[in-house]
């Protein structure tokens, strides 16, 4: 009898906890039928997006974080913006004139207002750009230090003056950190107030930020292109753990979940109401080779042999399960200077690789060390091990050395890199000049020690060439030479993998921005 009473009390306590737990439920992550949005949610018109890392700050100049920018683009407008084809188009700027190779005059659109009601003027542009161009503590400073000053001509007209000819200026002004800030609002209230109550000119305005939990935005009534009616609220929820993010998508807790790992693609696609959508990212994964004298990889034939021995197609289609496209260039589609012949294309010929090694005097092979991060890029460790296996087929013994990311960064900064290391390089400017600069000798002296006189000449010329057509050709030519000379073995361009509720019409973009006005309900 006593035993039964004890059982009863015990079960009662447990049931009570569970029942209390079940009784609540009004927040955005309430589960609904698998993958289906309930009718209440449609009425709410709330777009819920699961992101992997919290926003860093509302200081648009003091982060270099894509997921932070993916939120900022909804609140701040750039002077220029890339269209769907990657072509830079004016956004806040209505028209512009290149005065000389150091000066561009621009005129702002009339009638653009900040969320606090202040009108956008040239003074705001001067305040914004000169801040990031002069304060070396800001993380975006290296990308804007090329700007010398902004001269205000009148309320809507201003001139951007650079220290030296800057052909990438428009690309710089159409990327991360180039949103325009409200000068008067910040000067009157101070930075701390701005960071807690940010104000921009974008389609959505700030409502709430609970750190490591969520950021909520609401439509801006006086957006210069008209109020966005599609979503009454856009909520970016921070869910660092991959499996949790996937579960939220499957239960309808979120409408969009970024960075879904390949292991979960089948789970998302087989679930009724959810699917994986992919788009090519702007990150190219490659092996950075050391061309230092005395190493086998100093010989271009050896570098070519490594390129021919690695089956980029297998890496992209098998190891990454189709989550990448093989490439022979660092400059992907949508980038200025992209060479289409080198994209979706790769060298693979084991016999040719062996012949090149024999010609270079390494018929019996040699040993190299491949340093690789683990968990930084999609399937990076698996890719490194697969490469080791592929190179073994041409008698190159690869010792794979995995490094935790911070140690990996330190290894690179200390120039302690061995014959090869695996890295994925993005390009937030979408200007190929930014990528091919990696071949510049002075930049990587003591690191890769790669030097090609023709590439050096083209890099020097393109860096100051204000003629876009010529510059485009110069960058393409650099890519073509590199594809032959193989300073680095470019492997593949990663895809962005996003889980989406099928009731949402969302087309991802290479820049990985989540621009709410472009996301529709079906």
């Amino acid at each position, binding site marked *: 009898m006593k035993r039964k009473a004890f059982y009863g009390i015990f079960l009662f306590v447990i049931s009570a906890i569970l029942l209390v737990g079940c*009784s609540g439920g009004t927040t955005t992550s309430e589960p609904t039928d698998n993958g289906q949005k309930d009718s209440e949610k449609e009425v709410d018109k709330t777009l819920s997006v699961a992101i992997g890392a919290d926003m860093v700050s509302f200081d648009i100049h003091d982060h270099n974080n894509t997921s932070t920018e993916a939120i900022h683009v909804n609140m701040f407008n750039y002077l220029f913006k890339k269209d769907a084809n990657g072509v830079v188009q004016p956004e806040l700027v209505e028209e512009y004139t290149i005065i000389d190779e150091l000066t561009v005059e621009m005129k702002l659109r009339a009638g653009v207002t900040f969320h606090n009601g202040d009108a956008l003027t040239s003074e705001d542009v001067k305040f914004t750009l000169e801040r990031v161009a002069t304060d070396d503590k800001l993380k975006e400073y290296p990308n804007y230090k090329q700007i010398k000053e902004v001269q205000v001509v009148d309320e809507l007209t201003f001139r951007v003056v650079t220290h030296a000819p800057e052909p990438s200026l428009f690309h710089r002004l159409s990327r991360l950190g180039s949103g325009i800030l409200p000068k008067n609002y910040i000067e009157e209230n101070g930075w701390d107030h701005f960071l807690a109550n940010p104000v921009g000119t974008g389609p959505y305005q700030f409502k709430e930020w609970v750190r490591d939990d969520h950021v909520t935005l609401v439509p801006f009534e006086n957006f210069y292109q008209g109020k966005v009616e599609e979503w009454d609220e856009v909520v970016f929820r921070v869910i660092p753990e991959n499996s949790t993010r996937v579960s939220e998508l499957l239960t309808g807790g979120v409408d969009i979940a970024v960075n879904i790992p390949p292991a979960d693609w089948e789970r998302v696609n087989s679930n009724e109401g959810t699917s994986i959508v992919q788009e090519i990212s702007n990150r190219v994964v490659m092996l950075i080779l050391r061309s230092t004298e005395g190493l086998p990889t100093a010989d271009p034939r050896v570098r070519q042999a490594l390129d021919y021995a690695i089956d980029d197609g297998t890496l992209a289609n098998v190891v990454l399960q189709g989550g990448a496209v093989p490439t022979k260039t660092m400059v992907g589609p949508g980038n200025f200077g992209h060479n289409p012949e080198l994209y979706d294309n790769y060298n693979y010929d084991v016999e040719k690789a062996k012949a090149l090694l024999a010609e270079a005097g390494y018929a019996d092979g040699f040993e190299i060390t491949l340093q690789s991060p683990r968990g930084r890029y999609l399937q990076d460790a698996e890719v490194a091990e697969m490469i080791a296996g592929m190179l073994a087929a041409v008698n190159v013994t690869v010792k794979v050395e995995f490094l935790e990311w911070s*140690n990996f960064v*330190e290894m690179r900064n200390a120039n302690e890199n061995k014959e090869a290391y695996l890295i994925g390089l993005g390009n937030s400017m979408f200007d190929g000049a930014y990528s091919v600069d990696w071949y510049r000798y002075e930049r990587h002296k003591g690191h890769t020690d790669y030097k090609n006189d023709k590439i050096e000449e083209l890099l020097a010329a393109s860096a100051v060439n204000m003629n876009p057509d010529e510059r485009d050709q110069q960058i393409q030519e650099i890519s073509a030479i590199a594809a032959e000379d193989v300073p680095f073995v470019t492997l593949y361009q990663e895809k962005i993998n996003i889980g989406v509720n099928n009731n949402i019409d969302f087309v991802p973009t290479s820049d990985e921005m989540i621009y709410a006005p472009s996301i529709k309900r079906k």
Partner: protein
Amino acid sequence: MVKYLIRRLLQIIPVLFIISFIVFCLVFVAGDPVALMLPEDASQEDIEQLRESLGLNEPFHIQYFNYMVGLVQLDFGDSFRYNSSALPIVLERLPATLELAAAAMIIAIVIAIPLGIWSATKKNSPVDFLATGGAVLWKAMPNFWLGIMFILLFSVTLGWFPVSGRGDISHLVLPALTLGTGIAAEMTRLIRSSMLEILNQDYIRTAKSKGIRNFFVVNKHAFRNALIPVVTITALQTSTVVGGTLVTETVFSWPGLGQLLIQAVNTRDMAIVQASVFIIAFAVILMNLLADILYKLLDPRIKY
């Protein structure tokens, strides 16, 4: 008692300083945070420039001196990641962690105390084997895995609870169960062994021989005496709870101190790491002090 408390409170100060020194050294040797702040293609010049502007190019003793000057004013410096003072950021997350930790401890106590007593009174019975075996098995399951399994079962399959985030009490159930049941597993075994020791004492035998009902012998005479080790165990579990929140908060996207600390370590956000560890150490020391005070209340024979 008052003197004892004052002495214990004063002891906290050197302990916190020692902990701060250890954390400072560990963070210092862990490497350069600037390397992680800039993108892959940042030049060495950019890295050096940022390092200098953040004062990270200073030698160890200068950095430690600056850190200590700030510490005595409870200023841990600015977070590199959030670019604002670290302590308010840490304190902002504290309520979420306290909420989760309290719920987990309640669950642990509610499960462990009855189960531990029951298991001890039925020593070597199938019930005892089941309870102790279950406790070992549960303890062996990592929080990380258990949390994901709970999500799959209770959220994805059954749809009973939200998957993640912090909101109403329904959001609390799965993370608290994940953390609480793990602690309960350990506590059950410790309570069982503590109870077994008490149950073999002469005064228990005397009580039984006087004809007092077994229920009262166990729950009044034995349990009261077994409470002192239970209080010790519960206080010691504070550090286990803190360790558990690091994982549990990450799995359930619970915006607490654990998740903040994990991210701070990953990004080498020194100020946040130092402030978080300082607060956690303070909480653990305080819990131990509380346990000492409770001893006195539970057993008047204890004198300080």
